[in-house]
């Protein structure tokens, strides 16, 4: 904890062009945004086996000095232990509120993304299976893909989402965006002047949804209904990512639509 942030800190995720899926891309972008907001430099390294390298099995994870930390929550704690924090200025009530909204994003948005990727048959067949198994030879690509799908479906059953239809899921997304839009209002960030990890998380998910081409545009349309959310995304992109566009070793966000 006493060591300063090293120059060669690295963030690992799956291969950007061919392999990474919507939900993982969103999580990775959220962490990148958070680190940008803390002004901590990080390199993005793409590996086909990033998911298996991670100690918790989830991407992204960061390799800082000798430590390996995965997922936004633990990364925020880790960064705080090194003396950087975005939410120090908040009081207890605000912190609790921030946690609640982050839970909302994780339970609603992330789960909806997973549902769309793994439980919607058309998306699974045309996008998810080809992408997820792309670094591997036949028949391993099929085996791994089916194995992951079975795992996600089991999780969906456990949280009660297995019975939902796509329309219901999109409704949930809409409600979530509505709540976020209401909280954001006309402020630049969720807690007025300064961005917090909540902003990073919301940006990661919404920006990825807006810029990823799926089978249909239904998901991104739900987000586009709320103009303050799209403005929020554009603002954060311009402030924290545009300047680094030319530097190829940082950041994965692009303003043009990336096809998934």
């Amino acid at each position, binding site marked *: 904890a006493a060591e300063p942030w090293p120059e060669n800190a690295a963030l690992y995720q799956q291969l950007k062009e061919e392999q990474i899926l919507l939900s993982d891309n969103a999580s990775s972008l959220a962490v990148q945004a958070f680190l940008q907001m803390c002004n901590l430099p990080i390199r993005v390294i793409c*590996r086909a*086996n990033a998911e*298996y*390298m991670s*100690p918790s099995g989830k991407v992204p994870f960061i390799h800082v000095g000798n430590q390996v930390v995965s997922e936004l929550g633990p990364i925020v704690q880790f960064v705080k232990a090194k003396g950087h924090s975005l939410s120090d200025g908040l009081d207890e009530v605000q912190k609790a509120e921030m946690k609640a909204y982050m839970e909302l994003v994780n339970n609603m948005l992330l789960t909806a993304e997973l549902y769309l990727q793994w439980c919607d048959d058309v998306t699974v067949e045309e996008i998810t299976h080809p992408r997820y198994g792309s670094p*591997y*030879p036949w028949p*391993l690509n099929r085996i791994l893909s089916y194995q992951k799908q079975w795992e996600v479906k089991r999780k969906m059953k456990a949280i009660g989402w297995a019975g939902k239809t796509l329309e219901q899921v999109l409704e949930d997304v809409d409600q979530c965006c509505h709540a976020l839009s209401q909280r954001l209002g006309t402020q630049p960030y969720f807690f007025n002047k300064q961005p917090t990890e909540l902003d990073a998380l919301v940006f990661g998910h919404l920006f990825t949804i807006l810029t990823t081409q799926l089978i249909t545009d239904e998901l991104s349309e739900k987000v586009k209904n709320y103009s303050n959310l799209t403005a929020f995304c554009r603002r954060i992109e311009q402030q924290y990512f545009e300047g680094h566009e030319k530097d190829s070793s940082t950041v994965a966000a692009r303003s043009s639509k990336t096809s998934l």
Partner: protein
Amino acid sequence: QSLEPLPVPGPDFGALGEEAELVEVEPESKQEILENKDVVVQHVHFDGLGRTKDDIIMCEIADVFKAKNLIDVMRKSHEAREKLLRLGIFRQVDVLIDTCQGDDALPNGLDVTFEVTELRRLTGSYNTMVGNNEGSMVLGLKFPNLFGRAEKVTFQFSYGTKETSYGLSFFKPRPGNFEKNFSVNVYKVTGQFPWSSLRETDRGVSTEFNFPIWKTSHTLKWEGVWRELGCLARTASFSVREESGHSLKSSVSHAMVIDSRNSSILPKRGALLKINQELAGYTGGDVSFLKEDFEFQLNKQLFWDSVVSASLWGGMLVPIGDKPSISYNCVFYLGGPTSVRGFSMYSIGPQSEGDYLGGEAFWAGGVHLYTPLPFRPGRGGFGDLFRTHFFLNAGNLCNLNYGDGPRAHLQRLAECIRWSYGAGIVLRLGNIARLELNYCFPMGVQAGDRICDGVQFGAGIRFL
């Protein structure tokens, strides 16, 4: 290291008797002494055949008809009995030699009768196995002689101190030529390797052909394996963490073995030469390499019941293509009580933060002197299972830069040699395994190697 798919997937050697028993000669009422008289074997009878087909029996006993005198008949019958037992389809084989009765009987005609008891259609077994420094409990189900020609289907489940595995195997020998056989195996093996902080799960399919050529026995094998690697602990080094994940290996391999030793555990004389090569990547999968390794051992008996033994191992792994995807399960490891003694298990060579990564080339050699225990306690009985043992081991393991020539490679393997010497006691466990307890002095230790100087215990099948 490599994970062996299962214990004993190949030919199963049934109870090979060591004495020639159950050969009865019934004298005729005339009490003629038939020894050394010319005889003709007129009939060979079989009692007790059920589902076994005739053609494989015919091949095994064909020689009996060629016997010319009584001693020959006895010997050839005994050999035929051994061959029949080797098929692994009979629980018991008894041989009866009698003079010929009946109308067409010649005065010097003989009848040979084989009384056999076939194995049941399904047998179960429970064994404990000693592998290289680990023990396991093996449950097995076997269907011997499935279709009548000594085909065998085996299912095994092995639960061990380090690994759990199961597998299904189908074995078929060629009728008349048991050494020519093929088998198909499907398996799942899990292993833990604390010296590399690595956990490995292999699921695979393999098919192999065995055949003899003159005095050598050859094996040709295709194997497709789905390998999954993971970190054994959170403290695994990042180099090992980078290797986690899945890969598919599809490889063709060939092995040649010449073995003239009198036993595989503590042989007294004879030599062994094993040469193995494996080519991966040309039949699918995403791992490409060419791997060569050999094992040589020479034993000679000296005065006073002592044996001197020399052995040499070596191997090289050449990655093919531009994908540098050599994972830690394809490389060689060195060190340990079954390899260069005096060093910890597989703890020689390239390492990262305490995790040993193995190397692409290695060699190891040993010279041993085995003598009976001093003062020969328990002679003639239990004491004969023990030997005292003096050894000198040496070896080296490194990665090669394939841009340099072979000269540079030899030079790399010749510098920084690790070696050790010491003495100890060896215990022979049946014909399967051996235990060693040695006092070792490791030398030539390089930075990063982990040593085990002093007392070291080892159990296994294959020792340097």
